[in-house]
């Protein structure tokens, strides 16, 4: 083995870069209206990143650019560069269905399919061909429900309809569904805002447990929630990313006046 090969192998063995997603100079337009103005951000692989900001600040719009959810809105146009592990997700070669399996999404309102609990979770792995046989599929469903902290509550009624579960359980079912296709990133848009405090706490605990296995980005109106679940926080205002830093720094000593005014309730 010559030195160069050894070097190359060492580099392969070296730790992956800290950032999972790199967005550079991203602009998003709805028709003529600019909704996102020149946002650049690195999303950590190992951490939970929270996007906070007032309604209409662009945080959800920006979140949706990370798995090309805005493609479904005809008037939406995205400029700039978004790299997932160095790969441009807006490149013409990118398979959007595959992308959305790699970058899963959980929405504000739990939206299980009107099918059985089992089918809700099995659907993704089946269409993506992730299971070799029936037993394999059952294993994936069980594993996903366990990781979503729902298994013990539903294992005896997997054939029941997903929509018959409580709101908090439905949301965890949706998380199980996202996990089942073995994603790399999970985007969550206000995942707990329709839930009561106990169901919210379960979702937050789940986010905490999933951290490290998946890069997680969460949009939330609830600043206490951002403070509780995230390690990095980005503050959006009027389509711009005003400040991005360690969550502890943002909430104890924000550098920007606009951030401070927002998180202390002086936003006016």
């Amino acid at each position: 083995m010559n030195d160069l090969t050894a070097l190359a192998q060492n580099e392969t063995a070296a730790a992956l870069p800290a950032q999972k997603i790199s967005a550079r100079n991203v602009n998003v337009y709805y028709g003529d209206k600019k909704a996102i103005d020149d946002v650049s951000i690195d999303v950590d692989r190992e951490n939970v990143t929270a996007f906070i900001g007032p309604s209409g600040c662009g945080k959800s719009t920006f979140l949706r650019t990370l798995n090309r959810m805005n493609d479904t809105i005809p008037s939406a146009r995205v400029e700039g560069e978004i790299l997932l592990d160095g790969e441009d997700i807006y490149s013409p070669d990118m398979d959007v269905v595959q992308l959305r399996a790699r970058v899963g999404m959980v929405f504000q309102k739990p939206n299980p399919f009107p099918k059985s609990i089992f089918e809700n979770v099995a659907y993704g792995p089946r269409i993506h061909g992730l299971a070799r046989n029936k037993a394999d599929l059952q294993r994936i469903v069980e594993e996903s429900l366990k990781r979503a902290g729902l298994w013990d509550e539903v294992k005896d009624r997997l054939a029941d309809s997903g929509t018959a579960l409580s709101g908090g359980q439905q949301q965890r079912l949706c998380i199980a569904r996202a996990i089942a296709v073995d994603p790399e990133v999970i985007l969550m848009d206000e995942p707990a805002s329709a839930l009561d405090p106990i169901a919210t706490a379960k979702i937050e605990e789940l986010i905490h447990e999933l951290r490290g296995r998946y890069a997680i980005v969460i949009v939330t109106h609830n600043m206490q929630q951002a403070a509780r679940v995230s390690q990095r926080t980005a503050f959006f205002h009027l389509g711009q990313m005003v400040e991005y830093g360690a969550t502890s720094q943002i909430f104890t000593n924000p550098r920007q006046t606009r951030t401070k005014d927002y998180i202390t309730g002086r936003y006016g």
Partner: protein
Amino acid sequence: MATGQEHTLKVFDHEIGQLRALIAQMGGLAEQAVTDAMSALQSGDLDLARQVRRHDREIDAIEAEVERRSVELIALRAPMADDLRDAISALKIAAVVERIGDYAKNIAKRVPMIHANGEDRIEAISLLPAMAQLANDMVHDALDAYAARDADRAVLVCERDNRLDDFYDSIFRTLVTFMVENPRTISQVAHLLFVAKNLERIGDHATNVAEMVYYAATGRYLADRLGGEGLN
């Protein structure tokens, strides 16, 4: 967005204002206690000394009130950023000011013992007022810096602590010399040593207040700015 100073929830501003007013009030009482304790010491005024000891209970009561309100503010308002630092610094400053009051009380307690057995005025007492002035000025300026949220003035207070320490060292040596030369007065002068030590500690506490003012105003620790060296 308004760069506004006021919270959308006005009652929050009101509560923080009340907390700060209580600190200012107890700070004023502590300053007065040090002044009165030193006057009593110089003049041998036992009534004034007793009054200092009585008034200390007021300072203690305000400290308890500040603590109660700070905890309530943290629990009910979940303050963030500078509001959080305000609540935390109010808690810590109240505890420190209460200690300053205790040192004043301790000085007052020594007045009868220093002026016992009808002894004429102890000459060595004359060394202390200047030191007391320096210590109490630090307390005063630290509280002014608090009221104005002025980080720069807080730094100036901290920088004066070395002078107070030097003052103490010099008084210590002088008092020891005095005791050696006048063994008859040893027990009284020993009390004066404690008074000097108390004044030195009051300066340390003024420094602690200033450090908290700096933290509340900037979000940074003064010790970090000074390269990790403690100020005490």
